[in-house]
Each structure stands twice: as C-alpha cells, then as structure tokens.
C-alpha cells in the first residue's frame, strides 16, 4: 500500500473521529433541547460517513474489492438520522406547552397534527358527511 493512499485513509479516520467528538460535545454543551438536536444529527452523521469512507478505501486497497457492507451501513444511517431527529423533535413539541405557543399556524385552519392526533380522523369524517 502506497504512502499516499495510507495518508488518505488516516486523514479520513482523523476527520471522522473529530466530527464524532464535535457532535457529542454539542449534545453535552448546548443549552436547549432543539439546539442540542443539531450536534448528533449533522456533525455525527458527517463523522460516521467519513469513517465509513475510510473503511471502504482501506478494504478496497487491502483486498482489491470494495465491500457492500460499508455502503449499506452508510445508506441506512444517512436515511434514518433525519427520521429519528424528526421523531425526537415531535415528541419534544408534544411534551412542552411553552414551545407549542411559539409555533406558527399550519395555515389550513386546523391545529398541528402532532398536538391533535384524532383531528385527522374527525376532519375526514366531517368532509365525508359534507359530500354525502
């Protein structure tokens, strides 16, 4: 393995470790829940992507073929990180009355679905009655 490619793998590993640490530091340091959400969802995802890229390059050099496992892990983590952040912020809005007052109105005259889970069913029933 040439020195240049080894250096590329090492630099990718160092970037990955640094960004994983930055994400967790933001989680521990930032003052508010919605601000704390930024660290793990952005910096940690970048860090894990860099580590998986380093792993792809390393095993491609070592065995001559790029593994499918790293690409699967990358795809899965990049797809699921926004979904879990969305679910966590939804749960936070649902549990805090003081945050709910600061939200803008959705614009169609009905409240947010997060705060009114049965509203969707009730509205569907109402429009059905109007049509029928």
């Amino acid at each position, binding site marked *: 393995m040439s020195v240049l490619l080894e250096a590329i793998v090492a630099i990718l590993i*160092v970037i990955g470790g640094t960004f*994983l640490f930055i994400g*967790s*530091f933001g989680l521990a340091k930032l003052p508010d829940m919605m601000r704390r959400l930024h660290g793990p969802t952005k910096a940690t995802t970048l860090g894990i992507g860099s580590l998986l890229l380093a792993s792809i390059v390393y095993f491609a050099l070592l065995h001559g073929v790029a*593994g499918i496992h790293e690409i699967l*892990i990358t795809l899965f983590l990049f797809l*699921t990180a926004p979904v*879990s952040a969305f679910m966590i912020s939804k749960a936070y809005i649902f549990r805090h009355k003081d945050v709910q007052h600061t939200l803008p109105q959705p614009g169609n005259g009905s409240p947010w679905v997060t705060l009114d889970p049965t509203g969707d069913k009730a509205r569907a029933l109402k429009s059905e009655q109007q049509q029928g």
Partner: protein
Amino acid sequence: MIAAACAFAMIATCLSIILNIYRLIVGPDATDRILALDTMVINAIGFIILAGIFYSTAIYFEAALLFAMVGFVSTVAFCKFLLRGNVIE
C-alpha cells in the same frame, strides 16, 4: 500511520460516549435521554468500524449493521411511546 489515526479516533469516540453518558444521566427531559442513546449507538458503530480497520478484518461489519438497525428502531419506538403512550397500536 493508520494505527495512530485509529488510536486517535478511538480515544475521540470513547470521550464522545462519556459525554453521551453525561447527557443520559443529566438530561432534563426524556427526549434528551433518547437523543443521547441514539448518539451513543452511532458512536458505538464508529468504534466497531475503527476496530475493523485496526485489526484489518471485515467480520465486524455485520455487528455494525445490526447496531444501526436496532438503534433506529429503538429510537422510533421510544418516541412513539412518548407521543402515543403505546408502541404498536
């Protein structure tokens, strides 16, 4: 060179997991604790991949893939429980 980089990144990952444990214990709300657990799973995946590079073996990737799936499902299940009081309705 790669071994030194792996050692640096492993130390950074361990410090990250310690910071996550701090947020898991202190965290004023349940959503903070869910977020800390989610981040801890991602850090564990990073550590497993680093171990795979360090020992130059590919057998750790299945463990990392399983961690990714189980971590996501548990995060969504916790949030669903907080939102609806039930996981599967």
